[in-house]
């Protein structure tokens, strides 16, 4: 999979000078320009308050940019349906309905879209099989561990057969071991399904391990400071995690994060 994005290629996501300033003058995000090609795995990496979640929510249509435009397959976000493409959003928390079974939770987007029950149940079974939770279709969310709940949340995202998967620090609340396991599973799914993924995280290691491209962001004000292509081949296993190549990328991101953090204490000059 090539990470390069030639200018003439089809693009899945176009972020055109999108920015977010709240009415009280708080600058959550300075103008961002970003083009993401179909099939890319792009990570938005940065500390808290850098606007990475804000940017993701603008791509999802949950937040309106105060200026600039966001296009999905060359259509405004709100008109995604016209492109025939589908988007799924995975939240930081599992965000499941506690009163509904795993199966009913995963079926929710299909129910909301009016997919007939028989077809929906088949697709739910497939999605649960993909995340390895077929045995737990009848369980309630509270009977599952945090990692399993997150898998249900991902299954709920996959069940709509998305072209674009947006993930807002999905594994942030999990322990390191579970997180790495889910990271590996996610990469597997991404390759199998040919998804386009935008993934938000504050973990440098997670970003390097997963992405074709890392977009480094900094806080106060939130902005993009650097883009880094991770040119390691997939599938990436544990060997990659301990390679000098991996360490090099991590170091590079670490350095730019430090540089970016240093400027945040500088006086007004960072304000445009």
């Amino acid at each position, binding site marked *: 999979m090539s990470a390069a994005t030639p200018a003439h290629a089809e693009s899945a996501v176009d972020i055109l000078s999108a920015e977010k300033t709240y009415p009280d003058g708080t600058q959550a995000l300075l103008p961002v320009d970003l083009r993401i090609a179909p099939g890319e795995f792009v990570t938005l990496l940065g500390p808290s308050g850098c606007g990475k979640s804000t940017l993701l929510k603008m791509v999802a249509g949950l937040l309106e940019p105060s200026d600039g435009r966001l296009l999905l397959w060359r259509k405004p976000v709100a008109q995604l349906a016209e492109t025939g493409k589908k988007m799924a959003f995975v939240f930081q928390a599992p965000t499941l309905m506690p009163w509904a079974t795993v*199966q009913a939770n995963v079926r929710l987007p299909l129910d909301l879209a009016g997919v007939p029950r028989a077809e929906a149940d088949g697709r739910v079974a497939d999605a649960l099989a993909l995340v390895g939770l077929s045995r737990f279709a009848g369980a309630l969310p509270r009977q599952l561990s945090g990692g399993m709940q997150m898998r249900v949340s991902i299954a709920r995202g996959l069940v709509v057969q998305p072209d674009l998967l947006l993930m807002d620090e999905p594994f942030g609340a999990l322990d390191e071991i579970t997180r790495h396991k889910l990271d590996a599973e996610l990469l597997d799914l991404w390759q199998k399904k040919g998804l386009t993924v935008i993934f938000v995280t504050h973990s440098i290691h997670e970003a390097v391990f997963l992405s074709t491209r890392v977009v480094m962001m900094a806080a106060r004000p939130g902005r993009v400071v650097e883009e880094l292509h991770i040119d390691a081949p997939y599938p990436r296993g544990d060997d990659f995690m301990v390679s000098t190549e991996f360490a090099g990328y991590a170091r590079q991101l670490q350095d730019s994060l430090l540089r970016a953090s240093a400027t945040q204490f500088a006086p007004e000059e960072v304000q445009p």
Partner: protein
Amino acid sequence: MSASPAAPAVRPPMPGLGTASRAAPAAAQQATPREPAIAQATKAGTAPAPATGPSPRPVPWARQPRVQRVMYPLLVGVVVLVLWQALVTGFDLPPYLVPSPLLMAKTLVTDFAPLMLSLWVTVKITVLAFVVAVVVGVAVSFLFVQSKGIEMALFPYAVLLQVTPIVAVAPLIIIWVKDPVASMVICAALVALFPIISNTTLGLRSVDPDLQAYFKLNHATRWQTLVRLRVPSALPYFFGGLRISSGLALIGAVVAEFVAGTGGTGAGLAYQILQSGFQLNIPRMFAALLLISLTGVALFVLMAWATRRALGSWHASETSSD
């Protein structure tokens, strides 16, 4: 939706007598392969364990929390009754001051027919008022959550209704409404209404914001969001309101009967208490009082049961106690 057999059990089986008798043959066969080896060893080494159920150590019957929850208050009740009886007989208290529990029980039997008739009247008013309060309260809550403006405009009046003592309003209602039962139902419903409104409104509003965003992302209609998200989210609050409201409906019914007075219109339990007071028939007064209390307890138990049925499997308030 039926739970798949592979799904984990909702709650661990109670290690009771049933488990013991069922598990005894398994112990004889050196336990099932699912038993941990260590548990087998210890059980085989010690005395013939009567129970090798899913829980390794059977709790004695009298020390199970479920049994204790019933046993302890029952014990207190028995002690109080025995003391009461002893005091009345010991000090030779006259029955028109303090009747003994035995006399009270006897009165319950001798005056069974009129007391049951009165109980029926009171229960009827209570239940009708409760149903009216639930229907009206839920309807008002749905109206409130439609817009902040509606709530802002109407909520003060709901409060006004709540803070005005029903005893003060009841005479007016009884004059206005011709039918005595209807007038008493209205009085009791007014008392029971507020907790339903405030709890259900709060519940309909307290939706997980991320889930709400998820519904929005999936272009859910207003109706879908209401039925699939708001109503289930509101259920725990609604049932909390039901518990409070059911008790208030009974209080309202008794107060309304008192205000309606001895006109002979509705012969409820409150009427019995008034009558007994005039006639200094204190045992009967106590018997009527006991019936009112028991009705309240029955309502509370019924509501607790309904709450458990509706939320038992998923809501923290019902699952944490296990």
